[in-house]
């Protein structure tokens, strides 16, 4: 009996069985509808981009873990989700080397240098997209990306069209088309319905916080409505903003990323609302057609500040007897 070594650990001795892998697996499941639609919609190249993005992101994670002699965290699938999200936000025609560079930036510069999962102050995928947009905007231009495709709908990126042509461009986009993915855009970001279904699944599973999603969407709608009501002929209607571009994928999958979003209720509401507000500000008065990426990065940036708003801890403020 003396040689039987027991396990000694600290309470609690139970765990609810939740894990990072579970979380990411659920993210994966939730992303599937939109991703599958993207593959169906944009064909084999889309599948290639998604597969390459996911696998290269995981590969970068492996390479960096080996280089820095850190524990391999690939089994968590964290990088896979980063890569998949990256793939879903880019056009299906993106050259392979741009995808690999993008996932490198996302995984390494977005996450790894900050100390890995949980430490990234910004959403890694968005860091990748933002830096790529700054460097090689041509590869992320949806209008040129799909020139060789034949679509039975207006093959214009709705937001770019809005920016370039003003409100009369809106006529070519119906809300139903936008919702059903009849638009050009990122592989997985066009199918609004799929994103909404996946997102709701994620919320129900408890892996995305509904407060953020709801307030984000509210931010978009309220701000867009304000603009629209004031100048209906200059600005697009709120639903258009909600259903076009990255708005939905941003609301359901990007803004809710754990380590760059708040955990307390009021900050979550502020965070989401601010994100929605910024998107509309950028779209309506800024220079970028779709401000989702930078808007979410901006709320990521203010997250540490607003997340200090939290309920009083037990006994705080009670005079010490």
């Amino acid at each position, binding site marked *: 009996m003396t040689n039987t070594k027991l396990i000694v650990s600290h309470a609690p001795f139970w765990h609810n069985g939740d894990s990072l892998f579970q979380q990411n697996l659920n993210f994966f499941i939730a992303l599937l509808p939109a991703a599958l639609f993207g593959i169906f919609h944009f064909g084999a190249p889309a599948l290639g981009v998604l597969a390459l993005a996911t696998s290269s992101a995981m590969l970068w994670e492996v390479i960096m873990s080996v280089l820095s002699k850190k524990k391999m965290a690939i089994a968590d699938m964290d990088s896979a989700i980063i890569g998949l999200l990256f793939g879903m936000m880019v056009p299906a025609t993106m050259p392979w080397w741009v995808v690999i560079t993008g996932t490198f930036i996302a995984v390494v510069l977005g996450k790894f240098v*900050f100390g890995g999962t949980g430490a990234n*102050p910004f959403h890694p995928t968005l860091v990748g997209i933002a830096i790529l947009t700054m460097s090689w905007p041509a590869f992320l231009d949806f209008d040129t990306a799909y020139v060789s495709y034949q679509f039975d709908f207006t093959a214009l990126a709705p937001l770019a069209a809005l920016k370039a042509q003003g409100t009369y461009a809106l006529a070519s986009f119906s809300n139903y088309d936008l919702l059903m993915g009849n638009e050009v855009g990122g592989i997985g970001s066009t199918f609004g319905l799929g994103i909404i279904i996946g997102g709701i699944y994620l919320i129900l599973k408890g892996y995305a916080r509904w407060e953020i999603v709801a307030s984000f969407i509210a931010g978009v709608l309220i701000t867009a409505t304000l603009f629209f009501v004031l100048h209906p002929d200059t600005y697009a209607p709120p639903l258009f903003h909600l259903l076009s571009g990255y708005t939905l994928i941003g609301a359901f999958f990007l803004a809710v990323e754990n380590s760059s979003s708040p955990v307390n209720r009021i900050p979550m509401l502020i965070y989401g609302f601010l994100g929605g507000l910024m998107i509309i500000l950028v779209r309506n008065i800024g220079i970028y057609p779709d401000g989702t990426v930078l808007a979410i*990065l901006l709320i990521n*940036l203010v997250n540490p500040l607003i997340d200090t708003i939290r309920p009083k801890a037990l006994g705080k403020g009670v005079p010490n007897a």
Partner: protein
Amino acid sequence: MGDLFVLAISCIFINNILLAQFLGNCPFLGTSKKMETAVGMAMAVIFVLVMAGMITWIVDLYLLKALNVEFLRTVSFILVIASLVQFVEMFLKKSIPGLYAGLGIFLPLITTNCAVMGVCLINIKEEYTFIQALVSSFAYAVGFGLALILFAGVRERVILARVPKALQDTSIGLITAGMIALVFTVFRGMV
């Protein structure tokens, strides 16, 4: 009034002194490790920058331009700023020790803060009126403080994260700052 507001917004966000103009980066990295110091530094910069902006504007108009010796701008400005900072430091220490404890210790950092000198020079270069100079000084300083405080918020977390050894401290601080600069491009074109 509207113009001044636009000027202020552009100075705070779009032309942010730290992230777009690269001025004042040494204290930006040095004092952003803790939120407390960041807030203190931000306040001190606002205070000094407004003072310096006013004084140098006056010096420029009534001395340099009047005597047609604009080429002495650098020397005279920096001397005025350095003396001002030192004076304010001594004054606070003696007269308002409470404030000194909060702000004063940051004052020496400001002498070599290129943000102050830079803004003073920008004010002259842009040929701002006195009011404009005042607003721009204040707005630039607020922009400095805003960036510093946002940065400190992120950095407080980054410092505690398991950053790879070679990247720790300044290195990751710079990368984080780069990300913030990236984020600040969101304001482009908004005015």
